[in-house]
């Protein structure tokens, strides 16, 4: 059973639909914070703040590795083979990236402008 790109997007839209207002609100807030940060401190300082979020990303990645199976109602004992372990690593990496992106705009705003 083949899935088109639009089909995949359609499924993702249905998945986030219950949380869409929160999702959109968070994105808007983050973008506004990012814009304010760039206006205040400039692009290079704002981008520099992204580097500072890496520890958060690592924490998110480790948290994913430890807790993702439990969050899905499973346990690490249910993981079988390369597919499951790669999926866990990939999902945890994704969680780390999301954590970094969420923390980035407020961190950029609080950061002092570089000279």
């Amino acid at each position, binding site marked *: *059973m*083949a*899935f*088109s790109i*639009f*089909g995949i*997007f*359609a*499924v*993702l*839209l*249905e*998945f986030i*639909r219950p949380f869409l207002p929160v999702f959109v609100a968070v994105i808007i807030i983050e973008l506004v914070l990012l814009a304010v940060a*760039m206006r205040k401190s*400039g*692009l*290079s300082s704002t981008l520099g703040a992204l580097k500072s979020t890496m520890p958060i990303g690592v924490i998110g990645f480790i948290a994913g590795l430890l807790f993702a*199976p439990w969050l*899905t*109602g*499973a*346990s690490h*004992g*249910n*993981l*079988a*083979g390369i*597919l*499951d372990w790669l*999926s*866990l690593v990939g999902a945890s990496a994704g969680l780390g990236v999301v954590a970094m992106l969420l923390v980035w705009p407020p961190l950029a705003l609080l950061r002092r402008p570089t000279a």
Partner: protein
Amino acid sequence: MKRRNDSQAERVDSIVDPGRRRLLKAAGLGLGSMSLAGAGIIASTPARALATNARIVIVGAGAAGLATANRLSSALDGASITLIDRRERHLYQPGLTLIATGLWKAGTVIDSNQRYVPRNVDWIHASVSEFDPDVNQVVTDTGQRVDYDYLVVTTGLHLDFDAIEGMNPELIGREGIGCVYDNPENASRTWEMVDRYTTQGGVGLFTRGPGGIKCAGAPLKVTMLTEDLAQRRGTRDRLQMIYNSPSAGLFSQPDMDQFLKEEFPRRDIDINWHHRLIGIEPEQHRATFDTPDGPVRLDYDFIHVVPPMRAPDALGNSPLAWQEGGFADDGNWMEVDRHSMQHPRYPNVFGAGDCVGTPIGKTAASVKAQVPVAVENLVSVIAGAEPMARYDGYTSCPLITSRGQAILVEFDYNLDMVPSFPFISPYREHWVPWIMKDKFLKAAYNAMLRGRV
């Protein structure tokens, strides 16, 4: 200070911070692309809708009916599309096994048909009590006669509890009786019985109705998840679990059949072959099975009842049903060409979903594969062309073997495995198919209702 004009401001900005402009431009392009994709999904229209004033009636607003309504609404320009179903509530039936085994709450599967009925579709809130394809008409239970040029039958099926002597749906949730079909109330009451059984122990009888049933994996999933729950609770040694198959097999797909025939004994689940449930004595906690050696009565502390299933009477008693042969005997299912989904005797009639008599495929996954074929072929017929789309029998069952693991089983009319994702083995239990079943399949189902997948 003198204010710069806009063009001066732009030049200054690009000089002062060229990276900022490139970043913003890229972000804008990205957002624009996402918006277009999102808008395309939210308001999808085909490249060219067929202009027609055809009158199309769709009977049944379940998964197949709503998906058909949405696809036809997009594919046709000017058609009169009428949907007939009394039910306001829409149930995500693939979630019922998860409710019955304590993994989901009942509310998770409850939705509203109104959310999915397209605006340009007329919805008659009634049931069809008579099909009269010789005059291209259906009659509702309120006496309304609805004429059509084309008919799509998506009624779903009827649970025949009356075929089990002493059984009725009111007994579900009492006297150790459970049944995962086919609403969340039954599933919730079944969970109460499973919960009690896996705590107190005793003899558990697990059954499967003969012939065609919807989600043939559900009786097996209930069995395995009940066993898994007992293991996790540390009460497994208190349970004697017996699966009663009405035939000599557990699953139509041979590889899965073999897997289950090895898995059940490994998990100390006994199997009775050729045991068809024909009667139940609730107060005595006793069930009667028809076997080749005559009736056998078994006592139980818990019994999972799976009734025989058939087409709704209005359809089964109509000329649209198979008039002879296995599908007639099995459940008076609707007659359709197994590949085109078109009725062979009434070419302006199509069918999809649980009501059709095809060798396999009473699952949501089958609906997902059948409806695009039925719609495409209907549109071809309306346009005066030959219906060329074909359904290959695709069906799927995320066979949950324990909490946290499932096998993503997908096969076709040839009973060959046809995995959608080549990296997910259809022969092995994995965590990923469990996540798909528990988290993502409902989203895919909803996208299907909207005609988008």
